[in-house]
């Protein structure tokens, strides 16, 4: 029985170790800061260079899409805060649905370019005003 228990403890440890390693790898691959617009500016020193997710509301009228260049530009601000800092975002690709709807919030994934002072988004996730249920959009 002794030997059996040793085997069991050993295999449990082995499984746990393998699993923790996977979790560690996954965290390294997939975890990113999730920030509001103002938080991004506050934390530019630590997060300025890496990939982050920024959550914000689209400033009405700021959306501009150039078909020929496939370039989308818009400005984000903190949700429901009028005097929050503004973040200019550039995204290469077609605009997702519902972008120009009033009060639309969006999560942009990418990194902030310090020199050009613009957020270069690789991925956009549109969230819709909460008065409708279950909406989803991704680009």
């Amino acid at each position, binding site marked *: 029985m002794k030997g059996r228990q040793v*085997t069991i403890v050993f*295999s449990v440890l082995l*499984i746990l170790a393998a*699993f923790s390693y*996977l*979790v560690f*790898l*996954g*965290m390294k*691959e*997939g*975890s*990113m*800061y*999730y*920030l509001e617009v103002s*938080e991004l500016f506050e*934390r530019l020193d630590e997060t300025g260079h890496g990939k982050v*997710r920024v*959550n914000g509301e689209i400033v009405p009228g700021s959306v501009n*899409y150039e*078909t*020929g260049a*496939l370039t989308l530009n818009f400005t984000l601000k903190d949700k429901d805060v009028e005097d929050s800092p503004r973040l200019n975002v550039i995204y290469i*690709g*077609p*605009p997702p*649905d*519902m972008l*120009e*709807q009033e009060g639309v919030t969006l*999560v942009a*994934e990418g990194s902030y370019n310090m020199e050009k002072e613009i957020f270069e988004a690789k991925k956009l*996730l*549109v*969230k*819709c*005003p*909460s*008065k*409708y*249920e*279950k*909406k*989803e*959009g*991704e*680009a």
Partner: protein
Amino acid sequence: MIDFGKYSLLFSLILSIFVFLGLIYGIRRKDARFIDMSYRATKGIFVFMTFACFFLIYAFIMDDFRIEYVASYSEKALPIFYKITGLWAGQKGSLLFWGWLLSLFTFITVQRDEHKVNSLFLPYTLVFLNLTSMFFLVLVNFVTPPFEMMTMFPADGNGLNPLLQNPGMVFHPPALYLGYVGFTVPFAFAMAALVMEDLGEWWIKKTRTWTLFSWVFLTLGIIFGGWWAYMELGWGGVWGWDPVENSSFMPWLTATAFLHSVIIQEKRRMLKIWNVSLILLTFSLSIFGTFITRSGIISSVHAFGQSPVGFVFLGFLILVLAAGIYLIWTRYEKLKEQNPRIEAFLSRESSFLYNNIILVGICFATFWGTIFPLISEAVKGVKISVGPPFFNTINAPLFLLLILLMGVCPLLGWRKTSPKGILKNFLLPFSLTALTLPVLYISGIKSFMPVFFFSFSVFAITTLLREFYLGTSAGVKKNEKGWLSSFWTLVRRNRRKYGGFVIHAGMVFIVLGLAGYGYFQYKEDFVLSKGQEVTIKNYRLKYTDLTTRKKWNYEGVGSVIEVYNSGKFRGTLRPEKRFYKKREREPTTEVAILTGMVEDLYLILGAWNSDGSITLTVVINPLISWIWVGTGVVMFGTIWAVLPRRRREEEAGLLEKDIILHLKGVEVE
């Protein structure tokens, strides 16, 4: 009509209180009259809940916009199909529908066993079912009343969200609810077994069909959700590891583990505590899912209307967990001794155990990733979210192991497998799998994970086919009948086993589809002017025209694209943007798909200019259709497994199984 609806709900709640009191009193005093009264009242709840649902649907059909819920999710011009299914279009109706399903399932549970001699468990089971019902009845009466009136009566309703006007979305919620609610029944039986301190196999046998039924609907619900996302959202994928998706995936994982581990208890009387824990976990996770999706506590792209309902669910969840853990804790010592041990590391029961460890592992990883933003905010003061790469990094290898196990398991015998037997059983599937490697290499698949996914799938399918072959050939030898009739006898007499194998094959197809599009999706954006052509891989696309069309409640602008594959004309696709009348400022994307078993060509119209030029996103999704094919196979397998069999077949089946085991060189108990 509105008052009828309201009173039906109120009566149901009052009845459920009666049921509760009657049961407790009846159990205490051992008085069958009170228990019988409770049974009858349970049926009454079902009747009144049915009335309530009927009244709400009637209000939808009659365009009764005095009701806030109807006004929010319907409009006069909405097709009748979407009006009827408006019952579950929003939160209030969904909870009513949920409560109705629960009352129906409770009704069936009572009806099946109330007159049987051996139904001592029924009052206990009903206590737990009824408590859950009560929770939902309190919700629909006081927290989210579906018959709430507006102060101002609008002339027309808000209309249903255009994204929800899709068959995939219509069937996605009820399928999920059927799964969630269905698991309430095995949960209630397990809790009753704990209270009665009798964790024998009876509750598992009683709930076998419920478990499979709920599992297949949960599976369907999840796949419908993915299908809807693929057809309607226009980002080219089916799954994005969003918290809302995860919240339906987690109970599915523990339910799948449960489905397997109960077989071990039935065959070998093991894992009793583990099984009740798994069903408790499954039920809790489905409540937890509702909590995180409705409370808005974790940010998701699904913006549900945020409401206090989420936190009511949290309270319920804490109660359920506390009661469940208390019951398991107090019964633990007594039950532990009854558990026989697993004898060998390489046996069929141990492979079930590994399957359980992996499934729970995937569930834990998914849980961790889902709630990590909360943890990091609490600990570090800043939200850190984990995206799809996190989930894929952890879960892909674990799923790979599952596929491997799926192939290995049938090759192992119960209790112990001799090394010689293992070698003999493994030889053929193993060499076939080894053969796939050069084939994959030549066809250009060289990266690590996909190669494993494809070759392990071949391995799993081979061993499954081998099972069918061995069983049939044993029948041929024994009965001296033809192959076809032997095969038929085999699969009919061992429905559960071979149904299970068919489900496995379906799961392999689904995983193949996921791996195909997950690892080899190709995506490119183009700007095209009228008459222009582009070539992508072996497709040639020609943009010919931009057209408008009018439908009953929307206008669509679409680009006409001619598709040629390897020089041959394959058809015309028309991806479009729709402007629904109620929401003209938010166009929705309607993708166009050329479906094939090898790959899907998926076109998204991004934008257009006044000169007629368009932005077109072209996506090529290899093997994605296998997800839908696999789902069909899973459904077929499940139906096959749960179809009742005649007693004569059952006896014959037992005999046959012994013969097969014997032929495999496995000792028979």
